[in-house]
């Protein structure tokens, strides 16, 4: 299904590359969906609301671009945050040349965790898709994937903040 989604993405992106520019609704607006310590936000509802606003007044094929635009944006954010976290862990390992209490460099922990996160999310989205009504399965997979990329970003940002805090400790 993942392969199908990837093929679909590329199939859509080639003819619609120019169309992407026509999406007036900017997916970066969904940064407002990031929960804070004061405000708990239902991420799925928040992202779906943005998609609904983006889809307004568009035909079906244009409307699908809203989902892809959202997914592309958050996947890029997740990649960037993941790279920053890996880099920070690597810097930590190099700078101090120490092993952690668990006998593993921090970078290994990050890579382990990252792999486990990916395995879990793929299975989670497959289940989310399978349990959805047949006509909503593509949307269910897209929503789950967008949530996955979103939550991954938030998670990496949080860990990066903790790691930086640790780095600044005397």
């Amino acid at each position, binding site marked *: 299904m993942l392969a199908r989604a990837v093929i679909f993405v590329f199939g859509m992106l080639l003819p619609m590359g120019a169309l992407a520019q026509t999406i007036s609704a900017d997916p970066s607006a969904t940064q407002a969906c990031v929960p804070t310590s004061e405000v*708990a936000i*239902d991420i*799925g509802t928040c992202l779906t609301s943005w998609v609904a606003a983006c889809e307004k007044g568009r035909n079906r094929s244009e409307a699908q671009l809203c989902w892809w635009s959202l997914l592309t944006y958050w996947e890029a954010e997740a990649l960037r945050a993941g790279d920053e976290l890996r880099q920070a862990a690597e810097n930590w390992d190099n700078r101090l040349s120490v092993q*952690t*209490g*668990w006998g*593993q460099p*921090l970078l290994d*922990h*990050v890579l*382990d*965790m990252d792999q*486990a*996160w990916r*395995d*879990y999310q*793929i*299975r*989670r989205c*497959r*289940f*989310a898709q*399978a*349990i*959805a*009504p047949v006509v909503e399965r593509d949307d269910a997979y897209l929503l789950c994937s967008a949530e996955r990329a979103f939550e991954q970003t938030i*998670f990496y940002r949080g*860990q990066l903040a*903790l*790691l930086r805090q*640790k780095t600044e400790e005397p």
Partner: protein
Amino acid sequence: MNHLTPFILVASILFANAASTQEAGSDAQYAEAVPGCFERSETAEVVRTCIGGGTMACIKAHEWDSKIVRLHCMGVEAEAWDVLLNEIYQQRQAEAKRDDAENLANDLPEHAVLSEQLRAAQRAWISFRDKECRWAATLVNGGVVGDLFSMECHLDMTARRAIELKFKYREQ
């Protein structure tokens, strides 16, 4: 949670000695607060406010706060969420198996995958939770503080998974 064992063992012994000298509420009472709050909550947003409630009540009842009390109280609540998660998972599995059977009866074997996919997702989640919580402890160099971070991580992630299974994948 194996890496927690030595500290939790020590904490439990110390805590048991301290707790026996006072009349604070029982662990069962704080553990019961979790399903009670869960049942009263009609939405995922509301039920999220239940997380940490048992721990706070437990700490407050003991009238003294220390890493050991905190670790004990979080452990009690984490266990309660774990029991709840198992119950909800079993409910979802029962529904998935029933749907799989229906799909098989309707000659749709390619759709009879829910039970297996749910099991695969849950196993992957457990592996992820354990690694994330170990990372949380690693960031503070282990020790009792590491155990606190790890326990808080287990509590929070288990609770969130229970909420997700309960509200997000309810029967369509």
